[in-house]
């Protein structure tokens, strides 16, 4: 039976980008369905009744929610092409640790940059730079977070790169001088086919952010 793969997603979502990239790495064709998050579709509510959030990966009718869990699911379901998690248990644990760090820490800092004003926004910005520095020291001189090959942590983080320009404009700062190695890593990833194909252009995200701020009542 041919696999039926559907992705409920929203183009500027860094979580959705993860799943798109992971599927592309495995060369899996999927039916991309753009969602309106301000007017949720019945399929979204039915497939993710707990969180009602995108991305939702639907494989042969069965939904998987939460982007990091989707990456693992994709890796376990299609294991041969481009393994995304390392095979060594300790390396796997490190990858999961950093994935969790990105979700818990990095995302909440960026949320303050685009979703807050004044002092709160300023705090988010400071925190964000600190976190990027922590990630930069974890990266060190490696090509990718996992070493020689593009994988789980790279996928978890790269979506944020398409928002860098928007964060910089909102917070009036620049990331590259603070984190040169991480910036070089991001550019390296952006050259990869899967990333180039599914990361939206920075200026498109930058244009979208004021719309988003208006919708949540900030501007």
């Amino acid at each position, binding site marked *: 039976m041919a696999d039926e793969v559907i992705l409920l997603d929203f183009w500027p979502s860094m979580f959705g980008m993860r799943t798109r990239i992971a599927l592309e790495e495995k060369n899996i064709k999927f039916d991309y369905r753009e969602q309106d998050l301000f007017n949720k579709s019945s399929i979204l509510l039915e497939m993710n009744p*707990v969180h009602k959030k995108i991305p939702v990966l639907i*494989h042969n009718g069965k939904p998987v929610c939460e982007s990091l*869990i989707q990456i693992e699911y994709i890796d376990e379901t299609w294991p041969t092409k481009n393994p995304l998690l390392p095979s060594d*248990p*300790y390396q796997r*644990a490190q990858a*999961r640790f950093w994935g*969790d760090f990105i979700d818990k820490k990095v995302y909440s800092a960026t949320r303050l940059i685009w979703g807050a004003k004044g002092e709160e926004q300023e705090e988010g910005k400071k925190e964000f730079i600190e976190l990027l520095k*922590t990630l930069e020291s974890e990266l060190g001189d490696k090509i990718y977070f996992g070493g020689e090959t593009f994988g789980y942590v790279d996928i978890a983080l790269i979506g944020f790169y398409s928002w860098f320009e928007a964060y910089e404009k909102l917070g009036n700062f620049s990331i590259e001088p603070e984190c040169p190695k991480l910036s070089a890593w991001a550019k390296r990833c952006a050259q990869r086919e899967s990333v180039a194909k599914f990361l939206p252009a920075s200026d498109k995200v930058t244009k979208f952010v004021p719309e988003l701020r208006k919708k949540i009542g900030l501007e």
Partner: protein
Amino acid sequence: MAERSDEVKLLGMWASPFSRRIEIALTLKGVPYDFSEQDITNKSPLLLQLNPVHKMIPVLVHNGKPISESLVILEYIDDTWQNNPILPQDPYERAMARFWAKFVDEQICVTAMKVVGKIGEEREAVVEATRDLLMFLEKELVQKDFLGGESFGFVDIVATLVAFWLMRTEEIVGVKVVPVEKFPKIHRWVKNLMEINVIKKCIPPEDEHLSYIRARMEKLKFKAP
């Protein structure tokens, strides 16, 4: 099974649900370990060195290499010692187990913790929000003895936080967050858990634990404005 030369050490705290998860998993696998009780009000240099990012327990140190975050540690244990598997084998079932584990930590735990600091109507609202979340677990338990299905597994280990922390704290705080009339399946599941030797062995002894929680609640109340 564990190699003789394996050196396994756990930096934990006897009353922490996160630390107990690791003890349950290691015990289930038959992995011997050294336990090092930590004082999180006065963090040891060792803890700061082994978990510089979060500075939290639990930290598992296996042959000198540290791992932190309890869900990450549980996966590591299952990847490293493959007897008595904790996670299911099927990729879809694994994804579901991971989903519910994350749900317990990021939704239930986060929301339930707020009950303590609130009073009056605000407290009522948080209690209701916690119940709405618990209802998802209640539904998961339909026709199942355990959250892992027929046998005890990953989600059960993670959700001991509900069975033995949330449900012990509610007695002391004096709000029944998980009343048996509303959550008969969760109550039955807690009974099933109590039949399991590893659980009996690895959860904090009730009396001591209750006095500990009571003392903590007093402190929290004292601090509240």
